[in-house]
């Protein structure tokens, strides 16, 4: 991985973020995930965890341990920055065809998808066409965030990309499949939310008692199928 485009800045005194370039792309996201996986398998003393996002990765560390192990560097931030910059060339981007593809059955109708009609109107299409376009793509899990197991998937076909509601709903049912611009996502739990809800799945995205509590991981591929 080339270090030249990378911007590194402190996220407080116990974390730093590497910005790999300000755009949403598969390439940058693959880099972020690869670097995160690399750090998880090659932890430095004081490493706590790493979080890949669309085009960045954040590394959390225990500054006391870092300072203890790297007393020659001026600060824990400088030390971690140094470690990561030195590690970057060793990070290999896996070939994306290795990604898992997970199929998620979704019910698309007026009850399961209260905004399906609205998305169709905005797009100038009928709802069947919206569903056909939506289920016609394979989506990438760019990152998880917001609530446990909520995955940000992309990218939604331009023809049906619809901005989120001006003011969020107080409660969106668990399993709701939503669109926000070119992003799509599944509400892993009931929560407030502003995305356009076009369907609903029975698939459990978040199972707190499983050893692996979330079905999806960053980098996975998802296909929605009409249930």
């Amino acid at each position, binding site marked *: 991985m080339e270090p030249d485009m990378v911007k590194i800045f402190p996220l407080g005194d116990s974390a730093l973020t590497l910005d790999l370039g300000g755009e949403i792309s598969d390439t940058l996201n693959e880099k972020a995930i690869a670097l995160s996986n690399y750090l998880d398998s090659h932890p430095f003393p004081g490493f706590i965890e790493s979080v890949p996002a669309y085009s960045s990765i954040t590394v959390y560390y225990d500054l006391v341990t870092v300072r203890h192990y790297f007393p020659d560097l*001026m600060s824990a931030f400088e030390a971690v920055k140094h470690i990561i910059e030195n590690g970057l060339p060793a990070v290999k981007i896996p070939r994306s065809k290795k990604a898992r593809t997970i199929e998620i059955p979704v019910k698309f109708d007026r009850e399961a998808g209260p905004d399906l009609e609205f998305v169709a109107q905005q797009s100038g299409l009928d709802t069947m066409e919206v569903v056909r376009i939506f289920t016609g793509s394979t989506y990438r899990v760019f990152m998880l965030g917001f609530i446990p197991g909520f995955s940000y998937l992309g990218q939604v076909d331009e023809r049906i990309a619809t901005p989120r509601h001006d003011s969020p709903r107080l409660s969106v049912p668990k399993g709701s499949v939503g669109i926000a611009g070119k992003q799509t996502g599944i509400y892993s739990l009931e929560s407030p939310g502003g995305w356009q809800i076009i369907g609903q799945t029975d698939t459990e995205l978040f199972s*707190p008692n499983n050893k692996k509590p979330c079905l999806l991981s960053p980098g996975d591929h998802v296909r929605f199928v009409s249930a």
Partner: protein
Amino acid sequence: MNIVVQKPGIHTTVQDLGRFGYQKLGINPGGVMDPVAARLVNILLGNRDSDAVLEMHYPAPRYLFGEDAICAIGGADFVPAVDGSEIDNWRAFAVSKGNVLSFGIKLAGNRAYLAVSGGLDIEDWLGSASTNIIAQAGGIFGRALRANDEIELRSTSKLNLPVSSGKISHSLIPNYSSHPTVRVIAGAEFDCLSNQGLKTFLKNEFTVSMDSNRMGFRLIGKPINLSAPREIISSAVSVGTIQLLPDGQLIVLMADHQTTGGYPRIAHVISYDLPLVAQLGTNDKMTFQVVDTKEAEDLALQFEKNLSFLRAACRFQTNS
């Protein structure tokens, strides 16, 4: 042996120092809002810093002890009392089977911590006892305490030991205030503030709004502007991250923050000053002062050294 919750109080939860390693799955670290208070009361009892404690707000709970125990309370001062006799914060005290621990008035601060010698016996979820309300996991059934809940205690093994009579030194207790100056490190978008925005951020007071909770504190103040609108791609955030909302107001992310965010990151509260923010309540005010990363780290490092002295002293007392 256990503690029975007679009155649950407002949003009393089991917390420890947090759940790490799962933020990439959207599961936030959670944990105590004021880690220094929780660590101090644990250390005082010879517990591990990371042992689970009860985080309490006001009105505070009332507990009936089903067994003898040694406890300590720190953080906010809600005037605790055992069977009606007032006890001090920051000092270990003995409770006998059948005693009731209750709280009086809200004297200072907003979050008090109860630690019990030997620790609370809470089943870990993903490596932590902390309650995650949205996931409905961790702590006691993944929720705030209710009346008649029973909290198991780990062991009585330490009860034969004398209660260390010392009170934690003032120098170790955070300099709590209802109008603190909070030190921050510049965030990624700090340089994007307009001149006026920068001045507002550094010179004005910000009031904690009613709309504040364990997820974050919304602040009310003179609106702050960026020099130009910024489009930010969502990325991970941290406890203490100060985001600028589209209406020019600030939010400080706290223990139960979402793992990712897309608002401009103006600044980050330094670890050393997080307890000062954690103890604020509605209508309290804060001002900000920018320091560099090195200064923030040095403060944390020095504090860690002081804690290790306290830990050694408390071990010496509980073992002698």
